[in-house]
């Protein structure tokens, strides 16, 4: 009996949902959009992560430790000594670098190995793995690549491929293909070009040099082996564990990924508002029915569970649709994420999306959880419906109006608490996002009160503009505050999020542009193409440097060199500049000690970038330990400069100081100044002529480089901009759906108006004006919240993620855009209901109940 009776309740639920398919569909859409955003970001992030760890796993093989030089190079004598004197045979020499295969526009990791020593290390690069020594080690430039790459290039074993390294093109003979029968390893090795170590030395200009030595040190007596090996190492080299090396790489992208994730959660938050909105609707609409049910003896708990069951159904369908859509979206986002990682951090090739069960589960929990959470209050409201009376909305409306001061106070308190979180020490990025969340929730709770205020302000204006209908429209927004406020809140949050992110990107861009202007003082810049756009990891040929310096029309020259060195804080990017005192013209300092520029040219001092100082919590007065060819050296930090090129931060020293401690003579960039008689563009052409055939390098004027840099900047923000657009879309669809539902809901009221003599045209006017008013209110309220969000993003999240000081830049067009967005969405939302109402016979609508 009981079972049947419960089924009856469930059927009534279903019947209700089915009778309101639009409503039902829109709720599902709300959940689906939110879930799709979260899952797509998660999937693209995790696919990038997984591609990274898979390729790291394949390339690391069984390596446990590595010997590295002070910079990017290690003398091969270290390996000889290890083999001949120390006699440690679980060792393999490695040269690694990057290059581009002609015909495939992507970067490959070039791995130079001695396949004879490879056996214990990597499966695919050793004799055991099937490397045919007789064809591989011939002294001729040979290579082995993945079979799938060979297929992509439409080449076979025995054909030649061309690889471009630092702007130089080499022909390699393919003597073998890495065949893998499972997808995992295929993915891992798909961007690997395997060559003999001798060929690698030639490709990278590293005669007698290695990148590193890979070691396998067994777990038992690990410590004693490390101790004895370390003791035999020359000054300037060090033995590190492999995991610490890959950790550094994966940590690099942590802040980047966290920020993307936060943006996706913001979308889910907007989705929650939409669900809350639609659930409230369905409850309010059914209050008479629920009242009757209660009168018939249905318990509060049963009503609560009935509504929550509906929420589960909506949540489930929405989540599944969201996951499906999210996977599709992730395919697209993955490309953007990968591009950004490649521009900013390291070379990564992600060929396909990997879908992890854990992430899907997370999406299901989030989707269902958010739906249930959003549905809880409406459900509770329903369960508390009076038994005896058929509750009218007006009573709940008056209740809400009474509660307005309390709601506003709570909202304010939550907002302030959010601000308080920022004061917590060691709060980090998570605290920053918590603040953001608190601010958004707090502001949302203020929205009903703000709406009442704004409506009071707007009523006379609309009255003047649109007469009675104008006044009625505005009034209508406030009389049904319980429903309109949620719809408006959803709209405000969505629009504000897009405003906030927009302001943040703008501020960033303005800061970078003005920084580039001051940083780029020379007339012409020469750089070899490098694998990671924001890092100068390639070198200029010595011959070329000489050639360019001696070009007619060149007045003076300075050079830079960038390499990764080991410091007290792990691997860090060290930039050396040959600018002495004149460096003061290019570098904008945040802080510096008196007389720094004089010292910079002469003494053992360095400066560090703002991001570096922030990351490691160091500053002026501290010393930074750097592993040099003369062992660990401590360099006093005397200045902190602005730098927006790398969020990892950089350390800068004078070239003459560098040369005292490092043997490396390489140059990775050249800046030239034209003399008074020479036109810069003429000189650029002249230099390009001279470089032709020596090395394929970028020779760009100051303006050209600035434009190129801004282009890269814009590219790295593509993913953010896309996410922002998606959030706008969610907002747009959300507002469209909730306002449309709101108006459809009012069919009866509209019928009464029509019956009382309102013409279809006037009704049209009434509905459109009302949604328009809500749009305007939402747009206006989105501006302060958007500014708050952007403020937190610029001054809290950015600083805590990267340590950058940005100029706060608000462009009016962005704000106008936000209001326009809200109004347009709102107006569009009014079209269908008013069209339907104008067409319908008011008598039918009145008769329906």
């Amino acid at each position, binding site marked *: 009996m009981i079972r049947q009776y419960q089924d009856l309740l469930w059927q009534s639920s279903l019947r209700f949902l*089915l009778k309101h398919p639009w409503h039902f569909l829109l709720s599902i859409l709300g959940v689906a959009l939110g879930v799709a955003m979260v899952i797509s970001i998660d999937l693209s992030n995790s696919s990038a992560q997984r591609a990274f760890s898979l390729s790291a796993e394949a390339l690391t093989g069984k390596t446990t430790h590595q010997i590295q030089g002070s910079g990017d190079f290690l003398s091969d004598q270290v390996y000889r000594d290890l083999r001949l004197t120390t*006699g440690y*045979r679980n060792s393999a020499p490695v040269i690694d670098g990057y290059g581009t295969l002609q015909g495939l526009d992507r970067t490959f990791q070039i791995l130079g190995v001695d396949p*004879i020593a490879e056996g214990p290390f990597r499966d695919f690069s050793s004799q055991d793995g*099937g490397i045919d020594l*007789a064809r591989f080690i*011939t002294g001729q430039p040979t290579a082995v690549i993945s079979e799938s790459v060979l297929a992509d290039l439409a080449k076979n074993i025995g054909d030649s491929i061309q690889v471009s390294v630092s702007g130089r093109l080499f*022909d390699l003979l393919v003597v073998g293909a890495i065949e893998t029968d499972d997808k995992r390893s295929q993915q891992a090795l798909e961007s690997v070009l395997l060559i003999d170590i001798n060929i690698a030395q030639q490709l990278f200009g590293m005669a*007698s040099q290695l990148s590193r030595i890979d070691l396998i040190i067994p777990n038992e007596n690990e410590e004693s082996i490390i101790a004895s090996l370390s003791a035999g190492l020359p000054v300037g080299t060090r033995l590190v564990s492999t995991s610490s090396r890959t950790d550094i790489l994966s940590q690099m992208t942590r802040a980047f990924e966290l920020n993307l994730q936060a943006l996706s959660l913001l979308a889910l938050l907007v989705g929650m508002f939409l669900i809350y909105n639609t659930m409230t609707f369905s409850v309010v609409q059914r209050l008479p029915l629920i009242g009757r049910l209660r009168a018939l003896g249905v318990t509060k708990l049963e009503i609560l569970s009935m509504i929550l069951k509906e929420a589960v159904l909506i949540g489930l369908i929405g989540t599944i649709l969201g*996951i499906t859509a999210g996977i599709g979206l992730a395919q697209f986002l993955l490309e953007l994420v990968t591009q950004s990682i490649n521009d900013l951090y390291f070379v990564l090739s992600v060929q396909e999306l990997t879908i992890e069960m854990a992430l899907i589960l997370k999406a299901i929990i989030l989707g269902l959880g958010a739906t249930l959470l959003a549905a809880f209050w409406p459900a509770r409201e329903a369960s508390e419906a009076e038994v005896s009376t058929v509750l009218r909305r007006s009573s709940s409306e008056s209740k809400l109006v009474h509660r307005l001061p309390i709601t506003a106070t709570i909202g304010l308190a939550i907002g302030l608490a959010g601000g308080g979180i920022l004061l917590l020490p060691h709060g980090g990025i998570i605290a920053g996002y918590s603040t953001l969340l608190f601010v958004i929730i707090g502001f949302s709770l203020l929205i009903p009160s703000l709406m009442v205020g704004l409506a009071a302000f707007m009523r006379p204006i609309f009255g003047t503009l649109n007469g009675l209908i104008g006044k009625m429209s505005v009034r209508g927004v406030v009389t049904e505050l319980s429903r309109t406020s949620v719809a408006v809140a959803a709209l405000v949050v969505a629009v504000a999020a897009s405003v906030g992110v927009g302001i943040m990107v703008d501020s960033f861009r303005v800061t970078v542009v003005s920084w580039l202007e001051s940083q780029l003082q020379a007339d012409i810049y020469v750089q070899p193409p490098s694998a990671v756009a924001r890092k100068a990891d390639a070198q200029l040929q010595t011959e070329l440097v000489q050639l360019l310096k001696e070009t007619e029309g060149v007045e003076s020259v300075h050079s830079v060199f960038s390499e990764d060195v080991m410091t007290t804080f792990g691997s860090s990017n060290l930039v050396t500049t040959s600018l002495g005192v004149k460096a003061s013209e290019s570098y904008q300092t945040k802080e510096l000690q008196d007389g720094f520029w004089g010292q910079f040219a002469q003494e053992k001092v360095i400066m560090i970038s703002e991001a570096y100082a922030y990351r490691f919590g160091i500053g002026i007065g501290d010393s930074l330990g750097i592993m040099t060819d003369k062992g660990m050296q401590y360099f006093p930090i005397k200045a902190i400069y602005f730098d927006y090129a790398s969020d990892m931060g950089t350390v800068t020293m004078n070239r003459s100081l560098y040369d005292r401690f490092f043997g490396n003579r390489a140059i990775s960039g050249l800046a030239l100044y034209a003399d008074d008689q020479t036109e810069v563009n003429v000189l650029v052409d002249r230099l390009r002529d001279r470089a032709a055939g020596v090395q394929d390098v970028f020779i760009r004027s100051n303006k050209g480089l600035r434009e190129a840099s801004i282009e890269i900047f814009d590219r790295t923000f593509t993913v953010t901009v896309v996410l922002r657009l998606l959030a706008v879309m969610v907002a747009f669809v959300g507002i469209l759906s909730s306002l449309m539902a709101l108006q459809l809901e009012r069919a009866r009221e509209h019928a009464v108006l029509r019956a009382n003599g309102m013409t279809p045209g006037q009704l049209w006017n009434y509905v459109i004006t009302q949604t328009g008013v809500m749009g305007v209110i939402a747009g206006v309220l989105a501006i302060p919240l958007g500014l708050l969000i952007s403020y937190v993003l610029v001054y809290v999240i950015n600083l805590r993620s990267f340590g950058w000081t940005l100029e706060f830049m608000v462009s009016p067009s962005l704000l106008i855009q936000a209001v326009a967005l809200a109004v347009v969405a709102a107006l569009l939302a009014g079209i269908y209901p008013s069209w339907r109402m104008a067409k319908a016979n008011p008598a039918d609508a009145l008769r329906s109940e």
Partner: protein
Amino acid sequence: MKLSFWQIITIPLLVGLVLSWILFSEPGAEIEATISAAQALSGGDTEGYIQALGPREFVFPVDHGAHPGFKTEWWYYTGNLFTKDGRQFGYQFTIFRNQLSPTEAVNVLIDPKIVRTHNLEWNTNQLYLAHFAISDVLKKDHVFDERYSRGTAGLAGASVDPYRIWLEDWEIIQVKDSMASGERFPVRIKAEMVNGTALDIQLSPQKPLVLQGEEGYDKKGGLDGNASYYISFTRMQTDGVLQKDGELFAVSGLSWMDHEWSTSALDSGQTGWDWFSIQLSNGYELMYYQIRNVNPDLAPQITGSLIAPDGQKRDLDQGEVRLEVLEYWTSPHTRARYPAQWTLAIPSEELEMDVATVFDDQEMTVSVQYYEGALQVSGNFRNEVIGGNGYIEMTGYEQE
């Protein structure tokens, strides 16, 4: 209407479920790659290599070094060493050179403009391989180790002056000696296995260099070019230390050195060889090998030489040597069945002896499977009772 709405909802629901199910059924597997059949020491293609086509003039010490252009070469030292108490150890120490491709790999610059100032030390097509084994006769314990390296960058190689054949820290190196001549000088062998077994000995040739076969040109197969250049020190006084199982032994005894280079040796119908090197107690040495044919009816290809105490060599002709297997041993490691005991007779020299391995299991199961074992010899030579020691190398007994 209601139904169709539900149908609309149900379809994506099912599709979503099915899709997600398919996506998760991806199996994980180990990363491994197969490129083509690897043959580190392939005999395969000999085109483009120098072949041993006839006798040649040897120049020393140059010819003690490497002969690039020939595909294979080895410096092969074996010996039987004894402690003061008479405890016997056999040893084998061989460094192989294998040229991977016929063209010379010297400074093939892929971009001459860029690297011209640098020395390409890692450039090579020479693969070096070394085998080191100790036969502990008392414990019947045979331990061995193998190494590989590219023959460049100081990691492995063969230099002439001073003579040094090395693979990492395993090496044969000339010892300074005022009495040394161009072809004859003492050397030191130094090697240690991963398990700690080690050898550090000094070897001094007691007799002049023997040019095996036809003045050092040794035909092995019927085809032209299936031959090698082959020189030996058949008696080298050896003293030094040997470490095994944590014990250090002062040892002395006799060693034998073979240095041989070729591009191809065997005809297609030839399966393997039995190769004896024996030092007799009366000052004679015997080198004798037979290369067996697939067809058992065909007479084996043989080379043999008897070295008199004064260093005079007498070549043994086909049919002069009678070899009969008395016992076999089946390897528990590879199931290969090797001869273990023979009678060897050279009637024309009134020599007849029993030859036996000092114990059975002296099989080398490294990248190449073969048998390299210490021998014990007793018999009669011109009515005189003799004894002796030696080494046997047997190949081609692998189980199919």
